[in-house]
């Protein structure tokens, strides 16, 4: 009866091909980085772009080793790690708040078609408002209302997070085939059982796709949220600061951009790893 087996359940790959696969996996992205770096440096030569407009890549990275505050302060890298940590904390808080809110909205919308139709346009509309304009309204407004500083800052990250989570989770909850629901009905399952054993696990892959989008968006949200809060630490203030001195020291701003990208990547990787641990799915 095993003749119609499509795929052996225990395919154990040996070390050799596995290592080769790891190379194959990382090689394309490394090649792209190398190409981009080459284009960067080449265009500097070809178009004769001065260092004040586009610094050498190497000077951006050596910037991390420089001492701040006229050569007496901590190394730039120390400062950046501290600030990146602060921004990451804000991003995670916002991600959690937005994620919970997004899931709750999706659950409500999945239960009531009327509410979904009525409210979804406003959910979409919320993302069309210029973020830069509403950030001060929300952060300063909520701060004046007595909310703690960390909450005020993370609300923008939450604002960017809840949207993809609402849309993704709703799609996931609605992804259950009618026949799967009919089977549950034939077992005389309670609505609670249908949710826990069918709807929620079926929605998880959709939820994680949304969470991955949200993880990177929440870092941007955290940076934007830091700006009106007046707080001195975080990547947001660093960027504002570096932007003011861009004409004299452009590598500072580039370094800050680089760091904020790393924070986003790190968060994304964290969510992907969680997904792999939780979602048991076909490996395509």
């Amino acid at each position, binding site marked *: 009866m095993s003749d*119609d087996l*499509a795929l052996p*359940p225990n395919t154990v790959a040996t070390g050799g091909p596995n290592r080769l696969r790891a190379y194959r996996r990382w090689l394309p992205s490394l090649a792209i980085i190398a190409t981009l770096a080459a284009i960067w440096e080449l265009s500097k030569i070809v178009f004769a772009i001065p260092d004040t407009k586009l610094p050498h890549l190497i000077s951006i990275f050596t910037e991390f080793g420089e001492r701040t505050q006229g050569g007496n302060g901590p190394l730039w890298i120390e400062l950046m790690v501290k600030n990146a940590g602060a921004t990451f904390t804000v991003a995670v808080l916002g991600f959690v708040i937005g994620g919970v809110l997004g899931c709750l909205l999706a659950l409500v919308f999945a239960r009531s078609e009327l509410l979904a139709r009525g409210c979804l346009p406003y959910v979409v509309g919320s993302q069309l408002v210029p973020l830069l304009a509403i950030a001060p309204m929300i952060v300063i407004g909520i701060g004046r209302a007595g909310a703690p500083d960390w909450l005020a800052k993370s609300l923008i990250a939450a604002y960017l997070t809840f949207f993809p989570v609402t849309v993704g989770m709703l799609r996931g909850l609605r992804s259950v*085939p009618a026949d799967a629901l*009919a089977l549950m009905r034939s*077992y*005389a399952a309670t609505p609670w059982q249908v949710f826990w054993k069918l709807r929620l696990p079926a929605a998880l892959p959709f939820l994680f796709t949304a969470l991955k989008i949200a993880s990177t968006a929440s870092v941007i949200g955290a940076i934007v949220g830091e700006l009106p809060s007046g707080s001195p630490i975080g990547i947001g203030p660093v960027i504002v600061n570096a932007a003011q001195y861009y004409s004299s020291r452009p590598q500072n701003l580039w370094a800050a951009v680089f760091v904020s990208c790393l924070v986003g990547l790190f968060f994304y990787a964290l969510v992907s790893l969680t997904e792999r641990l939780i979602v*048991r*799915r076909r490996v395509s």
Partner: protein
Amino acid sequence: MTEPLIAIDGLNKIYQSAAGQVTALANVNLTIQPSEFVSLIGPSGCGKSTLMRLIGDLTQPSSGAIRIKGKTPEQARRDRDYGIVFQAPVLYDWRTVERNVELPLEVMGVTRTERTRRASEMLGLVGLNDFVKAYPWQLSGGMQQRVSIARALVFSPSILLMDEPFGALDEITRERMQQELLTIWARTNATVIFVTHSIPEAVFLSDRVVVMSPRPGRIEAIVSVNLPRPRDITTREMPRFFELATEVRERLRH
């Protein structure tokens, strides 16, 4: 004659569609005996799936009555009288084969040890003992449908409803699955209602073939299949098999 297991009396089903009213079933009367194997056959739109779904309380009739051991279909469903197999296996990707089969028992609050015991017994019956820990997507279509059958029978329902269960399989796998279904059925006391498009499949499996016609969906004829059991590959070569297939085909032409 024993007390019928299923009694259908004057059943009508009318759908509201954009084009107006569609009569899916008109005045259907049918009785089915315990442990009987009955096929519903007919072209698309004859209401055979609708009739199966009405019996299983997956949809409601417009008028008429269905009695299952004297109960309403809803009561029978709440008593877990129905095991259902659809054309698609509808397995849960995130559960192993074993845990898929245990699902109905989980819903019904059966203890873990009892669940494992019954699931492994059913998986043995459908010949999947070696694949309990595999995931559904690691199995072929035929094997997935076996899991689906094991899941439908694991709580020993008295009625097995099958909606074109082998419709998506190739002809060779299909004939083998038909043979296996008869073996499994012989070991249970289940009454089977089997929806199909295939004339040889209906004749090979059934005690009676209910021939249906569309617009409006109704019962055209009922053909009794008096082929000896157990049936096997030689059954398909009997002259009587061809005669019965021809009879069903002619009834379908009306």
